[in-house]
Protein backbone atom coordinates (compact mmCIF):
# COMPACT_ATOMS: atom_id res chain seq x y z
CA UNK A 1 0.00 0.00 0.00
CA UNK A 2 2.65 2.46 1.08
CA UNK A 3 5.06 1.15 -1.56
CA UNK A 4 2.54 1.49 -4.36
CA UNK A 5 1.95 5.07 -3.26
CA UNK A 6 5.66 5.94 -3.42
CA UNK A 7 5.94 4.12 -6.73
CA UNK A 8 3.05 6.11 -8.23
CA UNK A 9 4.65 9.33 -7.00
CA UNK A 10 7.95 8.50 -8.69
CA UNK A 11 6.11 7.43 -11.85
CA UNK A 12 4.23 10.72 -11.96
CA UNK A 13 7.39 12.87 -11.73
CA UNK A 14 9.09 10.67 -14.32
CA UNK A 15 6.10 11.01 -16.65
CA UNK A 16 6.15 14.79 -16.39
CA UNK A 17 9.87 14.94 -17.18
CA UNK A 18 9.60 12.52 -20.11
CA UNK A 19 6.56 14.31 -21.56
CA UNK A 20 8.30 17.67 -21.23
CA UNK A 21 11.50 16.44 -22.89
CA UNK A 22 9.59 14.65 -25.65
CA UNK A 23 7.25 17.56 -26.38
CA UNK A 24 10.21 19.87 -26.93
CA UNK A 25 12.15 17.34 -29.05
CA UNK A 26 9.09 16.67 -31.22
CA UNK A 27 8.82 20.40 -31.80
CA UNK A 28 5.47 20.81 -29.98
CA UNK A 29 6.96 23.22 -27.47
CA UNK A 30 9.47 25.94 -28.19
CA UNK A 31 12.59 25.34 -26.05
CA UNK A 32 13.16 29.08 -25.90
CA UNK A 33 10.05 29.34 -23.69
CA UNK A 34 10.01 26.03 -21.86
CA UNK A 35 13.59 24.70 -22.00
CA UNK A 36 13.75 20.93 -21.39
CA UNK A 37 14.83 18.68 -18.50
CA UNK A 38 18.11 17.45 -20.03
CA UNK A 39 19.26 21.03 -20.75
CA UNK A 40 18.23 22.10 -17.24
CA UNK A 41 20.16 19.22 -15.70
CA UNK A 42 23.26 20.07 -17.77
CA UNK A 43 22.99 23.74 -16.68
CA UNK A 44 22.57 22.61 -13.06
CA UNK A 45 25.86 20.67 -13.31
CA UNK A 46 27.64 23.64 -14.92
CA UNK A 47 26.35 26.05 -12.25
CA UNK A 48 27.31 23.61 -9.52
CA UNK A 49 30.86 23.28 -10.90
CA UNK A 50 31.35 27.03 -11.28
CA UNK A 51 30.22 27.59 -7.70
CA UNK A 52 27.44 29.98 -8.77
CA UNK A 53 24.72 27.61 -7.58
CA UNK A 54 26.23 27.20 -4.12
CA UNK A 55 26.80 30.91 -3.76
CA UNK A 56 23.14 31.66 -4.53
CA UNK A 57 21.98 28.77 -2.37
CA UNK A 58 24.17 29.94 0.50
CA UNK A 59 22.78 33.49 0.34
CA UNK A 60 19.12 32.41 0.10
CA UNK A 61 19.37 29.72 2.76
CA UNK A 62 21.08 32.11 5.16
CA UNK A 63 18.37 34.74 4.69
CA UNK A 64 15.68 32.10 5.02
CA UNK A 65 17.19 30.62 8.20
CA UNK A 66 17.45 33.99 9.95
CA UNK A 67 14.07 35.28 8.71
CA UNK A 68 12.16 32.13 9.55
CA UNK A 69 14.08 31.54 12.80
CA UNK A 70 13.31 35.05 14.03
CA UNK A 71 9.65 34.73 13.03
CA UNK A 72 9.34 31.43 14.93
CA UNK A 73 10.87 32.95 18.08
CA UNK A 74 8.79 36.13 17.89
CA UNK A 75 5.64 34.28 16.84
CA UNK A 76 5.89 31.72 19.65
CA UNK A 77 6.73 34.33 22.27
CA UNK A 78 3.96 36.76 21.36
CA UNK A 79 1.58 33.89 20.66
CA UNK A 80 2.06 32.40 24.13
CA UNK A 81 1.74 35.86 25.68
CA UNK A 82 -1.47 36.62 23.78
CA UNK A 83 -2.84 33.11 24.27
CA UNK A 84 -2.32 33.48 28.01
CA UNK A 85 -3.56 37.04 28.38
CA UNK A 86 -6.70 38.24 26.64
CA UNK A 87 -5.86 41.94 26.88
CA UNK A 88 -2.57 41.38 25.02
CA UNK A 89 -4.43 39.34 22.40
CA UNK A 90 -7.06 42.03 21.81
CA UNK A 91 -4.43 44.77 21.68
CA UNK A 92 -2.24 42.93 19.12
CA UNK A 93 -5.16 41.62 17.06
CA UNK A 94 -5.66 44.53 14.61
CA UNK A 95 -1.93 44.80 13.87
CA UNK A 96 -1.60 41.09 13.21
CA UNK A 97 -4.48 41.18 10.75
CA UNK A 98 -2.93 44.13 9.01
CA UNK A 99 0.41 42.31 8.71
CA UNK A 100 -1.41 39.21 7.52
CA UNK A 101 -3.28 40.89 4.69
CA UNK A 102 -0.93 43.72 3.67
CA UNK A 103 1.31 43.35 0.61
CA UNK A 104 4.42 43.98 2.70
CA UNK A 105 6.73 43.81 -0.29
CA UNK A 106 5.42 47.32 -1.07
CA UNK A 107 7.72 48.67 1.63
CA UNK A 108 10.90 47.30 0.10
CA UNK A 109 12.26 50.70 -1.04
CA UNK A 110 12.05 51.93 2.56
CA UNK A 111 13.70 48.76 3.85
CA UNK A 112 16.49 49.22 1.31
CA UNK A 113 17.13 52.70 2.73
CA UNK A 114 17.11 51.36 6.30
CA UNK A 115 18.92 48.07 5.85
CA UNK A 116 20.69 48.39 2.50
CA UNK A 117 20.21 46.40 -0.69
CA UNK A 118 20.33 42.67 -0.12
CA UNK A 119 20.52 40.36 2.87
CA UNK A 120 19.03 42.45 5.71
CA UNK A 121 16.15 43.79 3.62
CA UNK A 122 15.32 40.28 2.42
CA UNK A 123 15.45 38.98 6.00
CA UNK A 124 13.09 41.75 7.13
CA UNK A 125 10.54 40.94 4.40
CA UNK A 126 10.78 37.21 5.09
CA UNK A 127 10.35 37.78 8.83
CA UNK A 128 7.32 40.06 8.46
CA UNK A 129 5.60 37.64 6.08
CA UNK A 130 6.26 34.53 8.17
CA UNK A 131 5.59 35.72 11.69
CA UNK A 132 1.79 36.37 11.65
CA UNK A 133 0.71 32.76 10.90
CA UNK A 134 3.11 31.40 13.54
CA UNK A 135 1.68 33.78 16.11
CA UNK A 136 -1.99 33.34 15.15
CA UNK A 137 -1.72 29.55 15.30
CA UNK A 138 0.14 29.61 18.60
CA UNK A 139 -2.65 31.73 20.11
CA UNK A 140 -5.27 29.35 18.74
CA UNK A 141 -3.29 26.36 20.01
CA UNK A 142 -2.88 27.69 23.53
CA UNK A 143 -6.51 28.74 23.73
CA UNK A 144 -7.77 25.36 22.55
CA UNK A 145 -5.95 23.36 25.24
CA UNK A 146 -8.45 21.20 27.08
CA UNK A 147 -9.31 23.19 30.24
CA UNK A 148 -9.60 19.96 32.22
CA UNK A 149 -5.91 19.28 31.62
CA UNK A 150 -4.99 22.76 32.85
CA UNK A 151 -7.19 22.32 35.87
CA UNK A 152 -5.69 18.94 36.62
CA UNK A 153 -2.17 20.36 36.41
CA UNK A 154 -3.08 23.27 38.69
CA UNK A 155 -4.76 20.97 41.18
CA UNK A 156 -1.46 19.16 41.55
CA UNK A 157 0.13 22.52 42.39
CA UNK A 158 1.94 23.00 39.07
CA UNK A 159 3.53 26.43 38.76
CA UNK A 160 2.42 28.59 35.79
CA UNK A 161 5.78 27.94 34.11
CA UNK A 162 5.28 24.19 34.39
CA UNK A 163 1.71 24.44 33.13
CA UNK A 164 3.04 26.27 30.07
CA UNK A 165 6.00 23.98 29.29
CA UNK A 166 4.50 20.66 30.31
CA UNK A 167 0.81 21.04 29.42
CA UNK A 168 -0.13 24.02 27.27
CA UNK A 169 2.73 23.93 24.75
CA UNK A 170 2.82 20.14 24.23
CA UNK A 171 -0.96 20.10 23.84
CA UNK A 172 -0.80 22.84 21.16
CA UNK A 173 1.85 21.11 19.02
CA UNK A 174 -0.40 20.27 16.04
CA UNK A 175 -1.73 23.84 15.80
CA UNK A 176 1.74 25.33 16.24
CA UNK A 177 3.25 23.04 13.62
CA UNK A 178 0.44 23.97 11.22
CA UNK A 179 1.41 27.62 11.83
CA UNK A 180 5.08 26.80 11.29
CA UNK A 181 4.18 25.12 8.01
CA UNK A 182 2.31 28.23 6.79
CA UNK A 183 5.13 30.41 8.13
CA UNK A 184 7.78 28.34 6.38
CA UNK A 185 6.05 28.74 3.03
CA UNK A 186 5.65 32.47 3.55
CA UNK A 187 9.25 32.86 4.77
CA UNK A 188 10.50 31.17 1.60
CA UNK A 189 8.15 33.33 -0.49
CA UNK A 190 9.48 36.39 1.35
CA UNK A 191 13.07 35.44 0.55
CA UNK A 192 12.31 34.86 -3.13
CA UNK A 193 10.24 38.00 -3.74
CA UNK A 194 12.62 40.04 -1.57
CA UNK A 195 15.48 38.88 -3.79
CA UNK A 196 13.41 39.44 -6.93
CA UNK A 197 13.15 43.13 -6.05
CA UNK A 198 15.81 44.13 -3.57
CA UNK A 199 18.91 42.00 -3.86
CA UNK A 200 21.94 41.31 -6.01
CA UNK A 201 22.46 37.68 -4.99
CA UNK A 202 20.46 34.57 -4.21
CA UNK A 203 18.09 32.21 -6.02
CA UNK A 204 15.31 34.79 -6.45
CA UNK A 205 17.78 37.31 -7.84
CA UNK A 206 19.11 34.68 -10.24
CA UNK A 207 15.56 34.06 -11.55
CA UNK A 208 14.97 37.77 -12.14
CA UNK A 209 18.44 38.26 -13.64
CA UNK A 210 18.18 35.31 -16.04
CA UNK A 211 14.58 36.29 -16.81
CA UNK A 212 15.73 39.68 -18.07
CA UNK A 213 18.36 37.98 -20.26
CA UNK A 214 15.67 35.52 -21.46
CA UNK A 215 17.85 32.60 -20.31
CA UNK A 216 14.99 30.20 -19.64
CA UNK A 217 17.15 27.18 -18.80
CA UNK A 218 19.02 29.02 -16.06
CA UNK A 219 15.72 30.31 -14.65
CA UNK A 220 14.46 26.76 -14.40
CA UNK A 221 17.64 25.64 -12.58
CA UNK A 222 16.95 28.13 -9.77
CA UNK A 223 13.22 27.29 -9.80
CA UNK A 224 13.98 23.59 -9.39
CA UNK A 225 16.33 24.27 -6.49
CA UNK A 226 13.68 26.46 -4.82
CA UNK A 227 11.06 23.73 -5.29
CA UNK A 228 13.39 21.16 -3.71
CA UNK A 229 14.01 23.51 -0.76
CA UNK A 230 10.28 24.01 -0.27
CA UNK A 231 9.54 20.28 -0.32
CA UNK A 232 12.47 19.48 1.99
CA UNK A 233 11.35 22.15 4.47
CA UNK A 234 7.75 20.94 4.53
CA UNK A 235 8.81 17.31 4.92
CA UNK A 236 11.15 18.06 7.82
CA UNK A 237 8.30 19.86 9.60
CA UNK A 238 6.17 16.72 9.32
CA UNK A 239 9.01 14.74 10.90
CA UNK A 240 9.31 17.36 13.65
CA UNK A 241 5.58 17.13 14.34
CA UNK A 242 5.70 13.34 14.62
CA UNK A 243 8.65 13.70 16.99
CA UNK A 244 7.05 16.36 19.23
CA UNK A 245 3.55 14.98 19.21
CA UNK A 246 4.44 11.39 20.17
CA UNK A 247 2.52 11.49 23.44
CA UNK A 248 -0.91 11.93 21.91
CA UNK A 249 -2.72 8.60 22.01
CA UNK A 250 -5.10 9.25 19.17
CA UNK A 251 -7.38 11.86 17.69
CA UNK A 252 -10.02 13.51 19.77
CA UNK A 253 -8.10 14.74 22.78
Amino acid at each position, binding site marked *: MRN*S*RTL*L*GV*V*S*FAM*ILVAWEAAVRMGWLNPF*FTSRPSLIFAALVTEAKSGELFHNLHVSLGEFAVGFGASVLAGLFLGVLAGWN*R*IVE*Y*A*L*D*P*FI*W*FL*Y*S*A*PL*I*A*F*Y*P*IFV*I*WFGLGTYTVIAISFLLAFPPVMVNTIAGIKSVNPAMLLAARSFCARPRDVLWKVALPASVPMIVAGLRLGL*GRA*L*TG*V*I*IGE*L*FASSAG*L*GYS*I*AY*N*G*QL*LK*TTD*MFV*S*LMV*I*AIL*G*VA*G*TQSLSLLEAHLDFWRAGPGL
Partner: protein
Amino acid sequence: MVNTMRSRGFVSTVAILVFLAAWEIAPRLHLVEGFYTSQPSHVLTASWEILRTPSFVKDVSVSLEEFVLGLALAVVVGVPIGLLLGTFQTLRYLVDPPIMALYATPQLALIPIYVLWLGIGMSSKVAVVFVVAVIPVIVNSIAGVRQVDPSLVLVARSFCARQHDVFRKVILPASLPSVMIGIRLGMSRGILGVVVAEMYVSQDGVGNQILKLGSAFRVDHLLFYVLLVSAFGFAATSLVRKFEEHFEGGR
Protein backbone atom coordinates in the same frame (compact mmCIF):
# COMPACT_ATOMS: atom_id res chain seq x y z
CA MET B 1 -20.38 36.88 25.29
CA VAL B 2 -21.59 40.41 24.55
CA ASN B 3 -19.39 41.59 27.36
CA THR B 4 -16.22 39.96 26.01
CA MET B 5 -17.03 41.22 22.52
CA ARG B 6 -17.35 44.73 23.84
CA SER B 7 -14.09 44.53 25.76
CA ARG B 8 -12.39 43.04 22.68
CA GLY B 9 -13.57 45.93 20.51
CA PHE B 10 -12.65 48.38 23.23
CA VAL B 11 -9.11 47.08 23.78
CA SER B 12 -8.43 46.81 20.03
CA THR B 13 -9.70 50.34 19.41
CA VAL B 14 -7.57 51.73 22.23
CA ALA B 15 -4.52 49.90 20.87
CA ILE B 16 -5.10 51.33 17.37
CA LEU B 17 -5.62 54.85 18.74
CA VAL B 18 -2.45 54.65 20.85
CA PHE B 19 -0.53 53.45 17.81
CA LEU B 20 -1.92 56.23 15.60
CA ALA B 21 -1.15 58.87 18.24
CA ALA B 22 2.43 57.62 18.66
CA TRP B 23 2.86 57.53 14.88
CA GLU B 24 1.57 61.11 14.57
CA ILE B 25 3.60 62.52 17.45
CA ALA B 26 6.95 60.70 17.08
CA PRO B 27 7.96 62.41 13.79
CA ARG B 28 6.87 65.79 15.18
CA LEU B 29 9.22 65.32 18.14
CA HIS B 30 11.92 64.13 15.72
CA LEU B 31 12.09 60.76 17.45
CA VAL B 32 11.83 59.09 14.06
CA GLU B 33 12.48 60.40 10.57
CA GLY B 34 9.06 61.49 9.27
CA PHE B 35 10.28 61.26 5.68
CA TYR B 36 10.29 57.45 5.95
CA THR B 37 7.48 56.82 8.41
CA SER B 38 5.01 59.48 7.26
CA GLN B 39 2.14 60.37 9.63
CA PRO B 40 -1.55 59.48 9.85
CA SER B 41 -2.56 63.05 8.99
CA HIS B 42 -0.35 62.97 5.87
CA VAL B 43 -1.80 59.63 4.83
CA LEU B 44 -5.31 61.11 5.13
CA THR B 45 -4.42 64.06 2.90
CA ALA B 46 -2.72 61.70 0.45
CA SER B 47 -5.83 59.50 0.34
CA TRP B 48 -7.96 62.48 -0.57
CA GLU B 49 -5.53 63.46 -3.35
CA ILE B 50 -5.41 59.94 -4.76
CA LEU B 51 -9.17 59.46 -4.65
CA ARG B 52 -9.61 62.59 -6.78
CA THR B 53 -7.19 61.52 -9.55
CA PRO B 54 -8.97 59.88 -12.50
CA SER B 55 -6.27 57.20 -12.91
CA PHE B 56 -7.15 55.81 -9.46
CA VAL B 57 -10.34 54.15 -10.70
CA LYS B 58 -8.49 52.74 -13.70
CA ASP B 59 -5.65 51.25 -11.60
CA VAL B 60 -8.06 49.68 -9.15
CA SER B 61 -10.30 48.26 -11.86
CA VAL B 62 -7.33 46.76 -13.75
CA SER B 63 -6.05 45.00 -10.62
CA LEU B 64 -9.53 43.93 -9.61
CA GLU B 65 -10.21 42.49 -13.06
CA GLU B 66 -6.96 40.49 -13.03
CA PHE B 67 -7.71 39.21 -9.54
CA VAL B 68 -11.34 38.24 -10.23
CA LEU B 69 -10.52 36.52 -13.55
CA GLY B 70 -7.63 34.56 -12.02
CA LEU B 71 -9.63 33.52 -8.96
CA ALA B 72 -12.70 32.55 -10.99
CA LEU B 73 -10.52 30.38 -13.25
CA ALA B 74 -8.91 28.81 -10.20
CA VAL B 75 -12.30 27.91 -8.71
CA VAL B 76 -13.77 26.62 -11.98
CA VAL B 77 -10.70 24.46 -12.68
CA GLY B 78 -9.58 23.63 -9.14
CA VAL B 79 -12.82 22.48 -7.49
CA PRO B 80 -13.70 19.75 -10.08
CA ILE B 81 -10.08 18.53 -10.15
CA GLY B 82 -9.98 18.40 -6.35
CA LEU B 83 -13.32 16.57 -6.07
CA LEU B 84 -12.19 14.08 -8.74
CA LEU B 85 -8.85 13.45 -7.05
CA GLY B 86 -10.55 13.11 -3.68
CA THR B 87 -12.87 10.44 -5.06
CA PHE B 88 -10.39 8.27 -7.02
CA GLN B 89 -7.49 7.01 -4.93
CA THR B 90 -5.11 5.80 -7.66
CA LEU B 91 -5.47 9.06 -9.55
CA ARG B 92 -4.77 10.93 -6.32
CA TYR B 93 -1.61 8.96 -5.55
CA LEU B 94 -0.41 9.70 -9.08
CA VAL B 95 -1.10 13.45 -9.02
CA ASP B 96 -0.57 14.19 -5.33
CA PRO B 97 3.27 14.41 -5.30
CA PRO B 98 3.55 17.04 -8.06
CA ILE B 99 0.71 19.05 -6.51
CA MET B 100 2.35 18.91 -3.08
CA ALA B 101 5.68 19.95 -4.63
CA LEU B 102 3.92 22.93 -6.23
CA TYR B 103 2.23 23.75 -2.91
CA ALA B 104 5.59 23.80 -1.11
CA THR B 105 7.24 25.96 -3.78
CA PRO B 106 6.82 29.75 -3.59
CA GLN B 107 4.67 30.22 -6.70
CA LEU B 108 5.61 33.88 -7.00
CA ALA B 109 9.08 32.74 -8.06
CA LEU B 110 7.41 31.81 -11.34
CA ILE B 111 6.36 35.39 -12.15
CA PRO B 112 9.34 35.99 -14.51
CA ILE B 113 8.41 32.80 -16.40
CA TYR B 114 4.82 33.94 -16.95
CA VAL B 115 6.05 37.29 -18.14
CA LEU B 116 8.27 35.47 -20.62
CA TRP B 117 5.35 33.32 -21.79
CA LEU B 118 2.46 35.77 -21.71
CA GLY B 119 4.02 39.22 -21.91
CA ILE B 120 3.75 42.17 -19.55
CA GLY B 121 0.00 42.69 -19.98
CA MET B 122 -3.01 41.49 -18.11
CA SER B 123 -2.78 37.80 -19.03
CA SER B 124 0.46 37.17 -17.14
CA LYS B 125 -1.14 38.58 -13.95
CA VAL B 126 -4.27 36.49 -14.42
CA ALA B 127 -1.98 33.47 -14.78
CA VAL B 128 -0.15 34.34 -11.55
CA VAL B 129 -3.41 34.67 -9.60
CA PHE B 130 -4.73 31.46 -11.15
CA VAL B 131 -1.66 29.42 -10.23
CA VAL B 132 -1.25 30.72 -6.68
CA ALA B 133 -4.98 30.29 -5.99
CA VAL B 134 -5.68 26.99 -7.73
CA ILE B 135 -3.38 24.88 -5.57
CA PRO B 136 -4.99 25.56 -2.17
CA VAL B 137 -8.40 25.14 -3.88
CA ILE B 138 -7.40 21.69 -5.20
CA VAL B 139 -5.73 20.58 -1.96
CA ASN B 140 -8.68 21.60 0.22
CA SER B 141 -11.25 20.13 -2.17
CA ILE B 142 -9.37 16.81 -1.96
CA ALA B 143 -9.34 17.09 1.83
CA GLY B 144 -13.06 17.93 1.81
CA VAL B 145 -14.02 14.76 -0.05
CA ARG B 146 -11.76 12.64 2.11
CA GLN B 147 -13.25 14.05 5.34
CA VAL B 148 -16.74 12.97 4.36
CA ASP B 149 -18.03 10.54 6.96
CA PRO B 150 -17.90 7.09 5.26
CA SER B 151 -21.03 6.01 7.14
CA LEU B 152 -23.01 8.74 5.32
CA VAL B 153 -21.91 7.28 1.99
CA LEU B 154 -22.68 3.79 3.22
CA VAL B 155 -26.18 4.80 4.34
CA ALA B 156 -26.85 6.44 0.97
CA ARG B 157 -25.62 3.30 -0.84
CA SER B 158 -27.73 1.07 1.38
CA PHE B 159 -30.76 3.01 0.25
CA CYS B 160 -29.73 2.18 -3.32
CA ALA B 161 -28.49 5.66 -4.22
CA ARG B 162 -26.63 5.71 -7.53
CA GLN B 163 -22.97 6.79 -7.68
CA HIS B 164 -24.11 10.04 -9.28
CA ASP B 165 -26.57 10.78 -6.47
CA VAL B 166 -24.11 9.85 -3.76
CA PHE B 167 -21.71 12.38 -5.20
CA ARG B 168 -24.25 15.16 -5.72
CA LYS B 169 -26.29 14.75 -2.54
CA VAL B 170 -23.78 13.46 -0.01
CA ILE B 171 -20.15 14.06 -0.97
CA LEU B 172 -20.55 17.49 -2.54
CA PRO B 173 -22.50 19.19 0.31
CA ALA B 174 -20.34 17.55 2.97
CA SER B 175 -17.10 18.75 1.39
CA LEU B 176 -18.28 22.33 0.71
CA PRO B 177 -16.89 23.87 3.94
CA SER B 178 -13.41 22.59 3.12
CA VAL B 179 -13.74 23.82 -0.48
CA MET B 180 -14.61 27.27 0.88
CA ILE B 181 -11.50 27.26 3.06
CA GLY B 182 -9.48 26.51 -0.07
CA ILE B 183 -11.09 29.42 -1.90
CA ARG B 184 -10.39 31.74 1.04
CA LEU B 185 -6.71 30.72 1.16
CA GLY B 186 -6.50 31.07 -2.61
CA MET B 187 -7.99 34.55 -2.35
CA SER B 188 -5.44 35.91 0.08
CA ARG B 189 -2.61 34.36 -1.92
CA GLY B 190 -4.12 35.78 -5.12
CA ILE B 191 -4.25 39.33 -3.74
CA LEU B 192 -0.54 39.24 -2.90
CA GLY B 193 0.04 37.63 -6.32
CA VAL B 194 -1.62 40.47 -8.25
CA VAL B 195 0.32 43.14 -6.40
CA VAL B 196 3.70 41.42 -6.68
CA ALA B 197 3.18 40.55 -10.35
CA GLU B 198 2.22 44.16 -11.13
CA MET B 199 5.22 45.39 -9.19
CA TYR B 200 7.50 43.04 -11.12
CA VAL B 201 6.41 44.43 -14.49
CA SER B 202 3.27 46.24 -15.66
CA GLN B 203 1.97 49.46 -17.09
CA ASP B 204 -0.95 50.05 -14.74
CA GLY B 205 -2.68 48.63 -11.69
CA VAL B 206 -2.29 49.06 -7.95
CA GLY B 207 1.03 47.19 -7.87
CA ASN B 208 2.40 49.50 -10.54
CA GLN B 209 1.42 52.55 -8.46
CA ILE B 210 2.99 50.98 -5.36
CA LEU B 211 6.25 50.44 -7.22
CA LYS B 212 6.32 53.99 -8.59
CA LEU B 213 5.42 55.60 -5.26
CA GLY B 214 7.92 53.44 -3.37
CA SER B 215 10.79 54.34 -5.69
CA ALA B 216 9.84 58.00 -5.35
CA PHE B 217 9.58 57.68 -1.53
CA ARG B 218 6.04 59.05 -1.46
CA VAL B 219 5.43 57.09 1.75
CA ASP B 220 2.09 58.79 2.51
CA HIS B 221 0.67 57.86 -0.92
CA LEU B 222 2.25 54.42 -0.74
CA LEU B 223 0.60 53.72 2.60
CA PHE B 224 -2.81 54.59 1.19
CA TYR B 225 -2.46 51.87 -1.46
CA VAL B 226 -1.06 49.35 1.03
CA LEU B 227 -3.96 49.98 3.42
CA LEU B 228 -6.39 49.75 0.50
CA VAL B 229 -5.07 46.31 -0.51
CA SER B 230 -5.03 45.23 3.12
CA ALA B 231 -8.62 46.35 3.69
CA PHE B 232 -9.76 44.64 0.49
CA GLY B 233 -8.06 41.40 1.56
CA PHE B 234 -9.64 41.59 4.99
CA ALA B 235 -13.12 42.36 3.61
CA ALA B 236 -12.95 39.62 0.96
CA THR B 237 -11.78 36.91 3.36
CA SER B 238 -14.37 37.96 5.97
CA LEU B 239 -17.07 37.61 3.33
CA VAL B 240 -15.97 34.06 2.50
CA ARG B 241 -15.83 33.28 6.23
CA LYS B 242 -19.50 34.31 6.45
CA PHE B 243 -20.29 31.85 3.65
CA GLU B 244 -18.32 29.17 5.50
CA GLU B 245 -20.39 29.69 8.64
CA HIS B 246 -23.52 29.56 6.51
CA PHE B 247 -22.55 26.18 5.04
CA GLU B 248 -21.47 24.87 8.43
CA GLY B 249 -24.90 25.85 9.72
CA GLY B 250 -26.52 23.86 6.90
CA ARG B 251 -25.03 20.62 8.14
